[in-house]
């Protein structure tokens, strides 16, 4: 059996582990346009902060490829899939035959057209280790940085560089930071944390035009900067599958076994859609745990096993200078909230199920809540009033507890 994996991040690595859990001897070829050993992609901001280094950023031990008998082709792009001939065409002109193929191509930064952007010389995205290294070269203690986008990527970049540069300004169209995962109260805690580090926010605003080192906002405000980071969003890399005739909606469509509409072509990670277990909707859930779980499932199935991944939950754990934000699920239904200064909890429940939560600076045992969402545990089976205040296994029946604590899991 010959496996080809396109993509060297969480989903691709998970697929290798999934394949090897089922097939110890098949040939695996891993293709990546990034010239690096697999690294934890979200760690690039921690790298800039000095909280990790290239050695510790490795997503797997240094002997991973060797131990799993993986042939790596780094610095090469997969340009085309020929699903009829079962071949992948590479940027160096060579082709790779496959019996089973995984597309784990991730996503790329989306840069909207903005007037004058071409005239900005020092502009960066913040998705890859190479992006972080390039940004690092461009900044110093006197640098003024402008970040467009107050989402997860923009703010992690902000945290990464805030103490290494003279100033950071962040602009976003939304009226609060992290609009995809936080409501206003939670967002204000994060904003205060970053403001305490000198970061200046321009919210409900956007850039009207750039000159080389000045941005003029719609509101009329002018921001002088030396370095620009554009972090307004990402687009999934779906083209390989789309051009080969595979079904693509917003992301690559896959079934619960990770297979695309093309036979023997699987996909996983940020380039795909998942079925959100709370809403039943198909959507892109670009998060690392999801990428791993999808990739592992695809890998097992590529190797002839039979696995299903049908428990995708939106979730994020993200921190800024000691302020920890943990969120999961969707924010619909009735809610229960507790607010006290920089601590914030909000639970969302509907029709007898927990649908989602926001926890700011209250991380303890949050996984108990997440598991109620993931497993669709009827709240009638637990003491929900008890668990509202703090997550605890005490809220379960003694039998359910024995299953968790007195038995191998």
């Amino acid at each position, binding site marked *: 059996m010959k496996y080809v994996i396109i993509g060297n991040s*969480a989903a691709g690595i*998970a697929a290798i582990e999934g394949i090897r859990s089922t097939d110890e001897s098949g040939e695996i070829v891993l293709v990546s346009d990034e010239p690096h050993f697999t690294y*934890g*992609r*979200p*760690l690039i901001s*921690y790298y800039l902060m000095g*909280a*990790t280094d290239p050695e*510790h*950023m*490795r*997503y*797997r*031990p240094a002997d991973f490829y060797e131990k799993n008998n993986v042939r790596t082709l780094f610095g090469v792009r997969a340009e085309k899939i020929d699903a009829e001939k079962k071949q992948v065409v590479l940027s160096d002109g060579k082709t790779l035959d496959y019996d089973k193929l995984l597309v784990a191509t991730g996503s790329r930064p989306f840069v909207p057209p903005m007037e004058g952007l071409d005239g900005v010389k020092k502009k960066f995205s913040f998705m890859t280790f190479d992006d972080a290294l390039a940004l690092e070269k461009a900044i110093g203690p006197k640098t003024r940085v402008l970040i467009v986008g107050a989402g997860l990527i923009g703010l992690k970049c902000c945290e990464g560089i805030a103490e290494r540069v003279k100033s950071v300004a962040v602009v976003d169209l939304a009226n609060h930071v992290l609009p995809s995962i936080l409501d206003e109260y939670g967002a204000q805690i994060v904003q205060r944390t970053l403001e305490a580090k000198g970061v200046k926010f321009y919210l409900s605003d956007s850039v009207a035009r750039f000159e080389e080192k000045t941005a003029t906002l719609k509101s009329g405000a002018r921001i002088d900067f030396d370095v620009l980071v554009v972090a307004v969003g990402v687009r999934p890399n779906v083209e390989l599958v789309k051009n080969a005739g595979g079904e693509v909606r917003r992301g690559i469509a896959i079934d619960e076994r990770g297979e695309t509409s093309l036979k023997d072509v699987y996909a996983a990670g940020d380039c795909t859609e998942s079925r959100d277990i709370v809403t039943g909707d198909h959507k892109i859930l670009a998060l*690392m*745990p999801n990428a*791993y*779980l999808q990739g*592992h499932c695809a890998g097992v199935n590529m190797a002839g096993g039979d696995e299903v991944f049908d428990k995708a939950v939106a*979730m*994020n*754990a*993200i*921190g800024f200078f*000691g302020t*920890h934000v*943990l969120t*999961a699920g969707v924010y619909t239904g009735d809610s229960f909230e507790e607010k006290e200064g920089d601590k914030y909890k909000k639970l969302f429940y509907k029709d007898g199920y927990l649908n989602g939560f926001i926890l700011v600076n209250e*991380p*303890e*045992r*949050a*996984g*108990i809540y*997440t*598991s109620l969402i*993931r*497993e669709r545990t009827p709240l009638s089976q637990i003491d929900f009033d*008890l668990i509202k205040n703090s*997550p*605890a*296994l*005490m809220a379960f029946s*003694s039998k359910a*507890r*024995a299953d*968790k*604590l*007195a*038995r*191998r*899991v």
Partner: protein
Amino acid sequence: MPRAVRKQIITELPNPCLRNSADRGYSIMKRIYVNEKWCLGCHLCEYECAFANSGMTDMVKALKGKTIHPKIRVEDGGDVHFAVNCRHCTEAICVKSCIAGALSKDDDGMVRIDKDKCVGCYTCVLVCPFGAIMPSADGHAAQKCMLCLDNLCGEPNCVKHCPNNAIVYEER
């Protein structure tokens, strides 16, 4: 000690064989298991855990006057008490979810954390269904039970010192 609890100890002392299970000599797949009906809620396991992981040999010096951050936590509710620590899940979702590759499974099935790799994002805290992995004292990383194989004890100190065999270390 309340009479009911004392009676429980006398009449429901677990099979003495279990007490020696930690000496049976093989470590593969041994885990810590909880018998909640024997837990007195004394929280001694928490102190023994904190001591075992303090790197010190004098318990008083290690713990006196200090806030402890044990990797095992006792839940109390009325008459019910039980300890919770890492279950070393067969399909460990914390390992699968870790963004840094800091969590891994040993060949013998133990879930290990590499604190030098951990960046303290708390994704593991967000996914653990048992609430058994937690922020460490300094807040820069997560911490979890490694069965005292990562400290001087070499076997779970909480189990060793549980006065009522409410936690055991054995194969199941």
